[in-house]
């Protein structure tokens, strides 16, 4: 035990690690109320996937409505409910659950060489709160869904339909679910890494989860406090926010954004992790600047707690207070820039395999950079006076959330689907998916920047006729994007039934999850391996010992370098 390898510290608990619990046999314990992180991850994925379809259709109603300046399909009241539900669903019921719930759960324990998360039962609770909250959220349509946007600023949200109170409960519940996951993952990463996996040997997706989990824990608390107060004020008239009764409407904004700005990074840091893994695997190179990427992830996580008021430059605050928030916001560009440049350098000198996952990861570099740069326009206070509350904000946030998080998620789906299901997805459909999404997405959201600068406010069901042309352009491209996403769902369903068998390691990747069979066995690892180095050194022997690898999972030592240039 103590002689695993030089440099690998072992403790008395490692013998215990090799103990394997028997797999549950009943269907319910195996697939419904499972405590297996892999099943829970897939449950999250299916549930969030369904919500994604609903929220995507809501988005198409929004874009169809805006074909005409007077509103093409629904009444203004319905429109307000639809865009509010679109935002709420996408943020809390699609992106965050997919990033941490689905991929965090499925991939992270495998990558650290653990059998499960630290608290499997808590994980089960985390998951089951989520669909319950979703049902609650969508049943609010029956009594009048919330209509004041996903931000639900009081006092307008105090006047909102009865469903607004259900919205409070539903978001409160996903908040609890997030918090529990945050606790679970923090402890898992701190305590359950395989022997020898020091912090600087962790895969970068694990680093991303390690930075995200405490954020879930800390930030969500503020949101839940604010939501509880909003609920109490709506139902029982306890004045927190209503100025007519001595409350402060700006208080909500502070509480809300103290959560929701870190949440922006909760929604992007795991996607950064995907990109690091995927670029490295398909360039067949180590991630360039591993430590810089890891530390900049943590730097972003810390800075994200000190910038929330940049959402409130026009709300009314002491003027000088705008300056620190502006400057800290701008400084977040530095760690983010380090990542972008490191990823570009990862491509440099690679032997790049252009799979669908790789295309999405590279497309992410371009769209996310664009979204980051428009962030500067919003961070600069004087420019924000003009842009705040306009379509420019809508365009920016979709560039970082769709062009960032969703592009990352698409990449991750193509990358880890073989590990989850044991079958390959169709690369041909994947190519169509990528190019149509890339064209459709940019065509939809680039015109919206312009509309915002020209004076079109967001959250409007009707607008001035001079904006119609660019709205029609945006809507037309959005149909292309929706069609492309439909292709992805078709691809998933077809591949599940008839995709090519993937084998344990179809991509020739080196992180631990690819060393075991696909889909992984219940216990993940027959023996917990010891880890000797970072996983990314292509061409070297695998840095794992004591690993009972699946046949064909390891690669022969490569002898070729396909790099066309090298003169060194």
């Amino acid at each position: 035990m103590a002689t695993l390898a030089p440099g690998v510290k072992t403790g008395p608990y490692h013998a215990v690690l090799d103990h394997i619990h028997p797999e549950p046999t009943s269907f319910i314990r195996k697939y419904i109320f499972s405590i297996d992180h892999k099943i829970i991850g897939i449950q999250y994925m299916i549930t969030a996937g369904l919500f994604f379809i609903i929220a995507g259709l809501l988005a198409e109603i929004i874009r169809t409505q805006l074909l005409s300046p007077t509103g093409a399909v629904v009444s203004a009241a319905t429109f307000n409910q639809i865009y509010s539900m679109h935002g709420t669903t996408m943020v809390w019921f699609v992106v965050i659950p997919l990033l941490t719930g689905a991929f965090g759960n499925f991939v992270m324990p495998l990558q650290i060489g653990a059998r499960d998360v630290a608290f499997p039962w808590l994980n089960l609770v985390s998951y089951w709160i989520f669909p319950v909250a979703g049902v609650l959220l969508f049943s609010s349509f029956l009594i009048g869904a919330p209509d004041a946007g996903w931000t639900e600023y009081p006092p307008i949200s105090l006047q909102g339909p009865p469903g607004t109170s259900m919205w409070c409960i539903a978001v409160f519940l996903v908040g609890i679910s997030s918090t529990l996951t945050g606790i679970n993952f923090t402890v898992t990463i701190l305590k359950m890494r395989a022997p020898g996996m020091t912090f600087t040997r962790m895969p970068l997706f694990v680093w991303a989860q390690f930075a995200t989990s405490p954020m879930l824990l800390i930030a969500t608390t503020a949101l839940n406090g604010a939501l509880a107060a909003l609920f109490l004020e709506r139902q029982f008239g306890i004045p927190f926010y209503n100025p007519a009764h001595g409350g402060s409407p700006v208080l909500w904004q502070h509480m809300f954004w103290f959560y929701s700005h870190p949440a922006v990074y909760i929604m992007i840091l795991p996607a950064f992790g995907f990109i690091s893994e995927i670029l490295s695997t398909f360039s067949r190179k180590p991630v360039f600047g591993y430590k810089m990427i890891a530390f900049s992830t943590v730097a972003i996580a810390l800075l994200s707690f000190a910038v929330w008021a940049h959402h409130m430059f026009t709300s009314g605050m002491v003027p000088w207070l705008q300056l620190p928030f502006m400057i800290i916001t701008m400084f977040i560009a530095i760690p983010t820039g380090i990542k972008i440049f490191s990823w570009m350098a990862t491509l440099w000198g690679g032997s790049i395999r252009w799979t669908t996952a790789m295309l999405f990861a590279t497309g992410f570099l371009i769209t996310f950079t664009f979204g980051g740069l428009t962030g500067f326009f919003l961070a600069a206070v004087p420019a924000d006076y003009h842009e705040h509350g306009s379509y420019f904000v809508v365009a920016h946030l979709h560039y970082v959330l769709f062009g960032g998080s969703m592009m990352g998620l698409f990449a991750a789906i193509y990358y880890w689907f073989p590990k989850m299901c044991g079958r390959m997805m169709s690369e041909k459909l994947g190519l169509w998916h990528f190019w149509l999404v890339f064209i459709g997405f940019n065509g939809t959201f680039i015109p919206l920047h312009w509309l915002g600068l020209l004076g079109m406010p967001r959250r409007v069901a009707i607008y001035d006729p001079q904006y119609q042309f660019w709205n029609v352009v945006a809507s037309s491209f959005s149909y292309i994007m929706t069609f492309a996403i439909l292709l992805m769902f078709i691809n998933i369903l077809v591949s599940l039934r008839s995709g090519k068998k993937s084998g344990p390691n179809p991509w020739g990747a080196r992180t631990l999850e690819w060393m075991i069979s696909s889909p992984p066995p219940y216990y993940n690892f027959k023996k917990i391996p010891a880890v000797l180095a970072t996983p990314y050194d292509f061409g070297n022997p695998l840095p794992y010992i004591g690993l009972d690898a699946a046949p064909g999972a390891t690669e022969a030592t490569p002898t070729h370098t396909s790099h066309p240039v090298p003169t060194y």
Partner: protein
Amino acid sequence: MPFREDQLAQRVVKPKTNLGPGFWPITALIVVVSAVMVYLVETSPLPIGLVQAGGPADSVDALFRFLGATGAVIFNVVTIYTIYFAIVFRAPKGAPPNSIGVQIHDAPVLEFWWTAIPTILVVILSIYSVKIWADLQNTAGDVLTVEAIGYQFGFQFRYPKLTTPTSELHLPVGTPTTIHVTSRSTDVIHGFWIPEFRQKADMVPGLVNTIRITPTRIGTYRIICSEFCGVAHGGMKGTLIVQSQQDFDKWFAQQGGQHAGGGGGIPLSAGTVSAGQALFGQKCSVCHSVGPFSQKIVGPGLGQIFNDPAHPKLVDGAAPTPQDAAKIIHDGYSGDIGTMPSAQVNGLSNPDIANLVAYLASLSKK
């Protein structure tokens, strides 16, 4: 055989001069494309299609151009290199499945520069933004002061010497103007956006935000609600008319623009202390204490306003008479020590004001 960590220690390969086929031509392309884009951005009237109707639109637009030019350069560097690497470093057809790329882990000098250069850029952007911000803070105003009040779903405006609010905002050209922006106390948050001036402030009930502009271009402009405020939010618009001083004076006279004496006409004798005390708790105590002047919450303490030797005059410079206190409550106040919304914004009727004045007078007697 167990591997030793030092066997895995990396041979860091230092790139020499050859960075890839066509690396330097591509770099030259980036420089040229960036230079052209910077030139185009800096010389075009950004945002195209939106006129400048007065200060501070020009300073904000200068910031737009600066951000746009910087952003264009960064975007070119990232996009063109990414696409170039993507093409040049693709695995050739028929490459063996286990072929690998250059095993390079880092290049500290390169990383230093791509940390240092963005840091310098961010510092420059911050300084420039702060400068424009300071210009905006120091913009002249106050020659004309107008109060803009949002309600579901429209705007109204109060001029200092008009008794009734107007539904259009008229401003004389060339006059530095301060607009105090708020919402009715029982209403919701609205936004006050004048895109042709690049200015916006939220209209928050119970809070007064300030915009300072100097109109320079005669014409009719839009006022847009930019904060979701209910079912008719999309249609909530106002009109801002910038006109010559003569036209403005004519319009102002039509509106009945003579001094009505503010609170001077309010009958105060019917005010009761108890009603005033209750009202004070609801409407005033958020910002005002009943202690001495120095006991500030947002505004000064009001416990001794009629007999405070340290402050022989009220904040408007007049002697502390009940009529003058009523006038301040009625008109609202804006000055060195802060801003208080008018009685209309606060939802106070004339009898309410009488009650409040009676209560304040009773405090000062103790």
